[in-house]
């Protein structure tokens, strides 16, 4: 992981980590208090992106906040300069629509944000390069405190979640 330092924004994030048994931000033994940047509190699993030659696609996975305070995913980018939005699904059943999330994606302490087909996801709006199955898309996840981390999303074939691409009424 790489962490960008924006110290001013981090000042308010002094966390009590004594009770936190897991995560990238675990303190050294004996340390009771430590400033943890939001990106350091992120652990990810089951990440993947949908293969596509062009146009739109999406990325999914489980984002876990291993810290004791909320973290807020603010922006997602990649080296190709793709526009990548954080999308949420609204409503239930067949009445669900997709829209760009207003504000940041907040993950409460110890909780997961599950990004999955039919649910919240990261949306590539217009791919500059194909997402080729078996290769890996590396995305930079930037948090509200300015910290960021790179996360790999293995690219896989997936035929579902097409409804996500047809309903952009919310934009």
């Amino acid at each position, binding site marked *: 992981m790489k962490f960008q330092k924006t110290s001013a924004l981090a000042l308010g994030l002094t966390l009590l980590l004594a009770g936190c048994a897991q995560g*990238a931000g675990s303190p050294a033994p004996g340390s009771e208090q430590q400033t943890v940047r939001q990106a350091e509190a992120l*652990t990810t699993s089951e990440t*993947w992106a949908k293969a596509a030659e062009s146009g739109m696609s999406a990325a*999914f996975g489980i984002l*876990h906040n291993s810290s004791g305070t909320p973290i807020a995913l603010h922006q997602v980018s990649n080296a190709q300069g793709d526009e990548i939005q954080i999308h949420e699904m609204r409503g239930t059943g067949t009445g669900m629509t997709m829209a760009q999330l207003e504000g940041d994606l907040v993950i409460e302490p110890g909780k*997961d944000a*599950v990004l999955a087909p039919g*649910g919240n996801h990261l949306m590539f709006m217009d791919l500059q390069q194909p997402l080729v199955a*078996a290769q890996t898309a590396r995305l930079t996840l930037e948090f509200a405190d300015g910290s960021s981390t790179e996360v790999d999303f293995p690219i896989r*074939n997936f035929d579902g979640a097409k409804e996500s691409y047809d309903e952009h009424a919310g934009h």
Partner: protein
Amino acid sequence: MPGISVDRRALLGTTAAAALGGMLTGFGTGKLSVPAASAAEPGYRPFYGKYQSGILDRHQAHAVFAGWDLHWREGSKKDQLRAMLQMITEDAARLASGRGVLADTEPEMAQPGCELTLTVGLGQSLLDVAGHGQIGTLPHFAGDQLEQQYGQCDLLIQFCAQDPTVLQHAVRAVSKNLRGLASRRFAQTGFASPGVHGFRNLFGQLDGVNNPEGEVRAEAVFGQPGWIENGTTLALRRFEMDLDGWDEVDTAGRDHALGRRQADGSPLSGGSVDDPVDLAAVNGLGLPAIAANAHVALARPGSADEVMHRRGYNFAGQASGLLFASYQRDPATSFIPVQHRLAAADALNTWLKPVGSGLYAILPGVAEGGYLGEQLQM
């Protein structure tokens, strides 16, 4: 990266969706970190190790041998091959530990644990892309009536399991992930009911009676010289059986063609199924007890270099027969000369039609964090 270790059992079934945050029932269930199922865990065979599983270990009841031909995009073929092998490795590790693959739409079908193994091999065409390894291809054998649909492929995966539903899910999951990267040429389904002395083939014979065991098996498969350390080769042949013609053969004729008794596998030279075949033995008429062209007389290894480990399966459908699968360190000294002998004279050839043939370089095993084929140093 530190993960969250959640016990597999805690995540199975109805608790899975809740554990992952609610609304997404049926998607992405599984452990959040990837400790390999230990060898001791019932229902699971190890994925990581010195050798790939599905070779030396006990014959499962169901198998699919699936073959693909790769498509290439512009750019480095080595990079594409490496990426594909990394994906297959991840898929295989997940499936073997009872989890769906990434983007799996039916992860529930990865359960229950049923000793699923995936064993990955490359044809010479992909060794050439990698720039490492030489196994060649199988020659034409007398009597071959090969069909393109069962021919040599670039990539071969042997899927084996005790449960056919879990097995078919694994084949489907891997095949979906390979779409666009490769075209699947075949998915040859097989079954067997292994007992103490091999399994019954569809002729009714005990197949695999003389298979090597223990250290002898390991030496035949992974000893040196081989094409790579801890790797081996798989010879895959598809023999259709003329079961209608076989019906017309009486017991004595059947036993004569095989050189063993159909009933119990005992050699016609005398003794029980565990006794060695004695080609010098004579019958009451002073004639050889086992004919020179009997199957066992020709198949018997002439030396330690000819020993191979057979792990084949029956198939049935439009046609029925045997999916012959043998593992050997060097096919040039074992499978190929033995098959030439059999193809030229085996009394069973009357009822056998070889329609498929291929040779694959079985990759060495990998440790957790590695990928199949990493030893090729692409």
